[in-house]
């Protein structure tokens, strides 16, 4: 047993040196800079009224917890930050939409123990050009990852929700507030 002790000690010592917030891959500011070229785009708020709440409940599979959603915009481009539960923990997604099509999806914060694959481009690039069809469904499917099914579904739900919100803002007038 003594010959195995150094491995355990090494493991513990490495863990104790770890710094920073685990699983945070992009801050809000970094996400906005990537999305708009700077971190001061105009922002606005969508109140989750009864119509949106009903749509969101259908898309998410549960009622949204928030009363309103802040978003950022510049020209036809909007950016949304959405928390959605994977298996046990919330995953924070950033979704950029332009003219009703997803431009990019990013994992800003991942807290699950499994499903790390969804943060990487080989997975997220599937969301490019995703849009809502006339019947409200997604324009194309998202291939899953074995062992990460619930994280994949959380990403898909978040993109779908962002598209619903984006469509709502484009078809109704929203009161802008300070960036």
């Amino acid at each position, binding site marked *: 047993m003594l010959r195995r002790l150094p491995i355990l000690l090494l493991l513990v010592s490495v*863990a104790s040196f770890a710094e920073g917030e685990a699983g945070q891959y992009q801050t809000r500011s970094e996400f906005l800079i990537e999305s708009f070229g700077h971190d001061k785009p105009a922002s606005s708020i969508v109140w989750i009224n009864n119509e949106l709440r009903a749509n969101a409940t259908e898309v998410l599979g549960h009622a949204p*917890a928030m009363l309103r959603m802040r978003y950022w915009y510049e020209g036809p481009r909007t950016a949304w930050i959405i*928390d959605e539960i994977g298996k*046990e*923990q919330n995953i924070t997604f950033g979704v950029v939409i332009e003219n009703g099509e997803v431009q990019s999806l990013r994992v800003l914060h991942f807290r699950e123990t499994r499903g790390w694959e969804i943060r990487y481009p080989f997975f997220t690039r*599937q969301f490019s050009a995703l849009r809502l069809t006339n019947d409200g469904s997604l324009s194309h499917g998202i291939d899953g990852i074995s062992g990460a099914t619930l994280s994949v*579904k959380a990403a898909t739900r978040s993109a779908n929700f962002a598209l619903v919100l984006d469509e709502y803002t484009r078809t109704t007038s929203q009161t802008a507030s300070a960036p």
Partner: protein
Amino acid sequence: MNKTICWLGFALLVMASPARSETPNIEEIWAIVQQQQVEIDELKRKLAAADAQLAAADQKIEATGDYLDTFAMSEMQQPSTTIGGYGEVHYNNLNADDSARDVDQIDFHRFVLFFGHEFTDRIRFFSELELEHSLAGDGAPGEVELEQAYVDFTLTDTLSAKAGLFLLPVGILNETHEPPTFYGVERNSVESDIIPSTWWEAGAAVSGHYETGLSWDFAMHSGLAMPTTGGNAFRVRSGRQKVAEALASDPAYTARLRYSGIPGLDLGLSYQYQTDASQVSNDGLDEGQLLSANAIYSIGDFTFKGVYASWDFSGAAIEAAGADSQTGWFLEPSYRFRTARGDFGIYGRYQDVDAARAQDQFTQNEFGVNYWPTDNVVFKFDFRQREHNLASEAGRDFDGFDIGLGYQF
């Protein structure tokens, strides 16, 4: 602006007084204008007050919204301690060639609860506690098992380590075995008789993953203690010590390489080395090596799944018994139909198992259907037909059907 309003008031006054017989003189008009100005001033004051009230109301609404958002966000934050679980109930109706071996039973096969706790965002605890066959205790068919209990350390964005009691990184089912994630009421036999899922050991492990979709695991852990005599001699599944006052003189090592860099594709290759698969020296069973490969490929709603696993043991006794090589594999195509009322999936599976016991040497065909009314609940129905390799085991050949219900949360 004020002059315009005055003259407009004057004009309206004139227009509104057609019955008046006499035109007002200039003093009367001046008095009327002054009266109108007083009223206008009062209206402007009220309008300004209303604007101020509206602004204040806006501020209150914003403040209320901010507060409720904060409350909602705090509600959304996961607590430090989380609970999850899964379960499955099975009905088996199997007709064996030897009717004494017929099976007609219903069983709550697994009731599992997960408990997790986040000490910090880098140090987390995870556990899985299972009640098998509904009833545990002396003479009861089931047992209570601690299948996972480890502390996970996130070292960097791509590197983590864990220590404690954990599932070994081999095959498909061993780490991901919640009922909605697989077809068939019963788990496949390859990952039961060759890879003895659910297979957990105690020790320490390190894992890494990269942007290419490549990941690796390495674990040093407690080993098997396979029996060398009796009806279960050299049976791998019977060698699991389940970390219950387990012999630890001869550890084992497991390594896995995995590639999932293409959505829908998952490839895994595992190697395990048992320094002494019985934990007893000079008993005729020495080293053991497990090699397993697994693949999942999904394209659209079609999925193809396969596992191959093979043991190679050394030792005079196990070689004499012809159990030094134990192998199994299965192939499983499936197709999932997505409907507004839930998903339906159909599958077929062929498996070939050649394990230590004669009764564990067989081929099996099966096909069936899963119905997911929602993602985390599944109903299952399947037909199975098993044929044993040895004529002496022909009485165990069976065909029949299974019905199951599974869930996870």
